[in-house]
């Protein structure tokens, strides 16, 4: 009897415990996904990279000279003094890491699978572009130890040059992997999975485009490194083995997953400088800088064709010099970068809610090629450089005259507009023999030195990237010093884009670099490089 009771008790206990386990095993998340696949992450990471491109674009517009403080607001503080803190621009860092974490997930899940080579390569290419952007603002960054999650809570920093070199390697390998995949598919169709058009809102799965994109990014990185003496042997070697047969971007790299006039689903640039989904203003504390408008309205160059599609109410768009907080500063119209009237059909940089978000323009690709040709990094010589330069200007016209549906709306061809542009801007220097010739800033053929050629190329790139990639325009200014400031050190609105209230100690009175974000000091303090200053420190490619 006792035994039976004993067994019964134990039996009940065991049965009870196992049903207890079942009773408690209810912790599976019914609200959010706890697992996913690379196919589901890649589209988001591509769109995230496009958002990131715009984040850098908008964040750097005060520093890069494209916008200024508007009237009717006070308390701009560091915006006009440049005394930025470690709390400034922190979003650049965290969003880059955030997007790259997603891209890294795609790479990690696909890199070992030859079948998924196209997925791995697209993710690697974008990751390289995003990391390069971060290096361009912060120089040394955590790279080889970054994005390890809880395995490494305090990732060490890599030197910017090393990061750049590894990114070049990543891009080269990605191009090779795509080539190998294409070769394998040619032999046996379908051994390497194609990326569907829906999964790839950038190039619609076109792997040739991805290769050209990667090659263009690679060219951008190598050109920046090539000016650094210590990296000469590396870049010489890299240029020697550069595979130009892959080609470079000939079309704008535009992301569009199906942006729409809905909260959270708008094209990022339109959400930043167009309208809200209920047709309200997006930005009223900033207006275009006089400096930037000067490249259109004749104050520096004459280019109504582009000025009039970019700015609202051009040439009477409210504008200001950064740092001028006096009473006469005009207030924002609330739509200074949006020419439309709450209906589809506007052109310029902020076209419509549904427009595509540019990640890199074909114009930039051409200007990079032009510089590489002028400097002899790529073979082809000066004729090819002039062609590339003209193509760059035309590509810029083409982009700005596309409507939101990417239909070209110019009354004239980009080529005709480029020719008119060149005819309208004549040499203005003191050399009388050049009087009546076109300005070297708009026509590479009329430049008389490599310095002038580079000035022309970078100036045109600066104009083409206006409110498309303001950050890259600012980077290239720091690398090359173009577009040139007034040589006598004038501080007028058309002499410099530096703030009138700049506290910078640099000769050009701009910000040398931004500070590392506060959370790096707080949570990774031992690794953050010391002695970083706003005006004293340089990005490695800034050699002046």
């Amino acid at each position, binding site marked *: 009897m006792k035994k039976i009771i004993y067994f019964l008790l134990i039996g009940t206990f065991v049965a009870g415990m196992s049903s207890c386990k079942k009773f408690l095993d*209810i912790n599976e998340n019914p609200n959010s996904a706890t697992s996913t696949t690379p196919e589901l992450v890649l589209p988001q*990471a591509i769109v995230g990279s496009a958002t990131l491109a715009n984040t850098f674009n908008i964040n750097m517009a005060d520093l890069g000279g494209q916008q200024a403080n508007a009237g009717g607001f006070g*308390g701009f503080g560091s915006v006009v003094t440049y005394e930025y803190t470690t709390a400034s621009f922190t979003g650049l860092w965290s969003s880059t890491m955030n997007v790259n974490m997603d891209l890294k997930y795609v790479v990690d899940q696909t890199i070992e699978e030859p079948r998924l080579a196209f997925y791995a390569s697209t993710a690697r290419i974008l990751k390289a572009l995003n990391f390069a952007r971060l290096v361009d603002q912060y120089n040394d960054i955590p790279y080889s130890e970054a*994005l390890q999650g809880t395995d490494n*809570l305090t990732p060490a920093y890599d030197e910017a040059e090393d990061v750049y070199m590894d990114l070049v390697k990543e891009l080269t390998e990605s191009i090779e992997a795509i080539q190998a995949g294409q070769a394998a598919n040619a032999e046996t169709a379908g051994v390497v999975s194609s990326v569907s058009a829906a999964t790839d809102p950038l190039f619609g799965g076109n792997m040739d485009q991805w290769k050209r994109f990667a090659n263009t990014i690679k060219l951008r990185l190598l050109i920046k490194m090539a000016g650094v003496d210590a990296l000469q042997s590396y870049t010489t070697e890299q240029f020697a083995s550069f595979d130009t047969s892959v080609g470079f971007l000939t079309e704008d790299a535009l992301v569009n997953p199906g942006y729409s006039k809905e909260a959270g689903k708008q094209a990022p640039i339109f959400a930043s400088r167009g309208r809200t989904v209920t047709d309200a203003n997006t930005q009223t504390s900033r207006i275009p800088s006089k400096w930037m408008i000067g490249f259109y309205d004749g104050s520096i160059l004459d280019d109504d064709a582009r000025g009039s599609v970019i700015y609202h109410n051009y040439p009477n768009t409210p504008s200001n010099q950064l740092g001028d907080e006096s009473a006469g500063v005009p207030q924002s119209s609330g739509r200074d970068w949006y020419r439309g009237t709450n209906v589809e059909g506007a052109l310029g940089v902020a076209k419509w809610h549904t427009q595509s978000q540019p990640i890199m323009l074909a114009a930039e690709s051409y200007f990079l090629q032009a510089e590489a040709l002028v400097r002899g990094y790529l073979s082809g010589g000066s004729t090819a450089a002039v062609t590339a330069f003209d193509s760059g200007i035309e590509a810029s016209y083409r982009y700005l005259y596309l409507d939101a549906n990417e239909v070209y709306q110019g009354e004239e061809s980009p080529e005709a507009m480029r020719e008119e542009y060149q005819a309208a801007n004549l040499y203005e220097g003191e050399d009388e023999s050049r009087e009546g010739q076109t300005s070297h800033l708009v026509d590479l053929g009329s430049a008389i030195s490599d310095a002038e050629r580079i000035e022309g190329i970078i100036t045109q790139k600066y104009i083409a990237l206006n409110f498309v990639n303001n950050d890259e325009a600012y980077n290239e200014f720091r690398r090359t010093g173009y577009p040139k400031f007034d040589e006598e050190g004038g501080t007028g609105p058309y002499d410099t884009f530096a703030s009138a209230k700049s506290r910078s100690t640099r000769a050009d009175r701009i910000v040398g670099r931004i500070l590392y974000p506060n959370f790096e000091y707080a949570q990774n303090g031992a690794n953050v490089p010391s002695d970083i200053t706003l005006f004293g420190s340089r990005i490695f490619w800034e050699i002046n």
Partner: protein
Amino acid sequence: MKKLLLSLFVLVFVAAAATAQTRTVTGTVTGQSDGLSLPGVSIQVKGTSDGTSTDNNGRFSIQAPAGATLVFTYIGFETRELAVPASGSMTVVLAESAQSLDDVVITAGGVSIQQRQQGNQATNVTAETLTQGKSFNVAQSLSGKVAGLQVNAVGGGVNPEIRLVLRGNRSLLGNNQALVVVDNVIVPTSVLGNLNPEDIESVNVLNGAGAASLYGSDASNGALIITTKRGKEGVSRITVSNTSTFENASFLPKLQKRFGSGTGPDAVPTYTPYENQQYGPAFDGSMVTIGKPTENGNIQTIPYSPTDERDQFWDNGYTNQTDLSISSGDEKSSYYLSAQYLENTGTVPGDKYNRFSMRLNADRNITDNFTVSFNSNYTQNRYDRSNAMEVAFNDVLQSPAHIPLTRYKDWRNDEFANPNGYYNEYYDNPYFTLDNNRELVRNDYLTGSTQFKWFPIEKLSLLFRVSLAARNGSSKSWSNRFDFSEYTSGISSSKEQGEYPGSVADGSFFETQINPEFQAQFKDQLSEDFSIDAILGGSLRDNNAKYLNASSFGMAQPDLFNISNTTQRTQGGESIERVRQIGIYGDVRIGFRNYLYLHMTGRNDWRSQLSVENRSFFYPSADVSFILSDAVPTIKESGVIDVLKFRGGVSKVGLVNIGPYALLATFGQTNGFPYNGVIGYSIGDRAVAPNINPEITNSMEGGFDFELLQSRVVGSFTAYKSTTTDQTLPVQVTSSTGYTSFLTNTGEVTNNGFETMLRLTPIRTDAGLEVTVGANYTYNDNKVVSLFEGQEEGELTLGTWGAAGVYAVTGEAFPMLKGTRYQRDDQDRIIVNPSTGFPTVTTEYYQLGRTEPPHRLGLDGILSYKGLRFATTWEYRSGHSMFNQSTTGLDFSGAGIKSTFFNRERFVIPNSVVRTGGTDEAPVYTENTNITTYTGGVDFWTNGPSNTGVAENYVYSAAYWRLREASISYDLPSRLFEDMGYVKGVRVSLQGRNLLLWTPKTNLYTDPEYSAFAATSNAIGISGLNDAPPARYFGFTLSVNL
């Protein structure tokens, strides 16, 4: 522990089986005062372990040897010893005990014990004390009455949220609020605001974690054990009462009435007719126009003189409350039935609230040893209120003092009140704001339990109980579409078309908790010296909740508040939460000679939120109660000391501070996904340690209770200390890791303090006059010992607002207010610019003070004479600071009185210095006596670095003295209505709450109890305009007993 329990049971059974040569004695036991029979009286043959207890009719039967003495003990009554008479039949009358030590309290698990047995600090609040102020929120009516209990009404308005904390904040991010248990049903804290206070029999407040073994680890923050009324045998009672309460705003921000509309220039302020800022010329009584001409060409002209219109914006609120209760009982059954309806209009114009509740409590003895009990409570509440009160409050403050604000109520018909014609260019008519942004909220609560109790033998009871706590609700909120006329947009660039696109949001949810429980209780007098009361139990708990919401904006047409009536796509969300727990517990109380009690508990919990490896955890506790005055009779015989009791306890409790599904990182759609059917996932920002454990609090307490001079002096003292380790915190990590936070166990917080109580009865006359005065004082100090592993300094953000925030900082009290302040020299003097006279603000945050009061004092006084009763409660708190974030409303607008402290003239910043030399590394400062600010007007007061961005300018002492309650009630002499046979009693009373509030001069803002964050947030210390101004309440009640 388990072994001990087992051996105790064995011991008990063996003892019960022993028999002796005896005869049968039978009898009944009744109470002296009402003559009613007493069930459950313990009867013991003196000198033996033989015993029994009375049945439900007070009858007993026991075998006892001839000439034996029987000992009758019953909690709440004096013990009697009587010899067995020859007849073998006895009628025993027991007298109620005079000492509170023998008062019965219903404590954790529904167990009735005497106060003498309690080894932990506990306070019992009776119905009379609770309802004397006629607060319609039970939590508020406890304020100031219980040592150690901190009650904060964190907001104003109708039915505000209440935060209840005992012995300080232990968990940095987790719940610190006391567990609320109503008739053994664990209920959400929000039930307190929805419980009919008239239903409550008593509230037993357990300050420590003593209830954790019976209710699980949720009771680690202490518990409020609420017992509702039940029917009494032989008493039928019907009570009808009505209470009317009026409320008015009692504390408004201090405003200036010297300067009218204008923004500058500072040197010669000019009048601007449509301006919100109040930096214009001084009032002079002349006639001025305000606003711009309306479309009809009309414009308002008013005197340029200050008014009280802004203060008069707040309405007088009114509450009408009607109560009905019926109770009855006979020897087999009893019931209590009640209903209450309450209707409230608040001080915010247009806000309404109503509440209806019903309760049925019933008991039935099916047989002599089998009882069924039933409790049920249904409450529904309905809110109709504005969801833009904060905006409206700001609108009020953006109105200069000469504006006839209250004439703008009828914004639909009055052209000057309509947004198209409203005088203010930049801010809306607050009446329009309130009207255009509204929400309707519905909450239904159903709580109850069914309980079966069976006594297979007299000493053993087996109890099975199933309880339910369910809540379901829905809400609809909207912002109506309004289109400015073309005329208005044309003359006012800030009144833009499309400014009010309109939005609608709907939500619905349910929360259900089911809690079956089994409990075996064994009670016996083991021998003459030893008694035992042992409980063994198990409980299951299943919490299931689901929340749905849908929202959309851009209304297609105004006034149609349907989520489909929009131009934008409707967004929806769903969240499901299900958690379960299993607990097995034991609770043993061993008594020695009625003066020494050892109480030990142990409980093991299994919680579904944790991983399989970590889901089981055990926590024990022990406490001792020793009544010295009973152990050493000479003490009692002295005639001075009636009671002297010492007690002490230790406990360990685990608190699970993560919700369900927190153990696995999640992927969500971001960047606008999905687009056109394509999904895009992103890795979440939070990494989670796989081995999350419960937070563990180890605490100890010790103290004593005393009663002197025939209980005319009663007091207690308790000291406690607790250490909470393994806090579950999302540690901030750099985004370079790919995540921004990492949820793990880290951090330690200690709390220590003492709770004291003293009650004096200086007057107690035979004529019936009695005066008692009482005080309770609580001191609590806490400290964040560590936060993140391996980091000596650490800081955890609990909530930020503007230039300040509430933090947990290693080595400091918690929560800690931090914010910006003026740049100062090493002697703490403000550095001003030698050319402008302006100070500048720091970028880094400094500690600006702790935000929970270390000192809390409650005072009460009661005077009763025959049918008359007068009672008051006072409260005092000090030692803590608050930050007010209404800088826009007060200083940007220029409405705040602070901007006139220097008469809007140039002034020397007090306690300031200017740099007169030295190097940048070692600057030399000299006291500033003559450099005035270049302006004392708008440019100084609205400027961030000189004023509004300086958090320390808005930090004030949160100390207060408050007359919390005062009431006077009178029971009408029965001769007045003795002709009316059916009326048994009539009581009239007058009562007031929050009648007086004294705060330091630095508090220009609001009630320092308020918090800008929800009651569940630990980010205490910031207040703003998001709460309606505090109110003062006056009411009267008529109550009739039938």
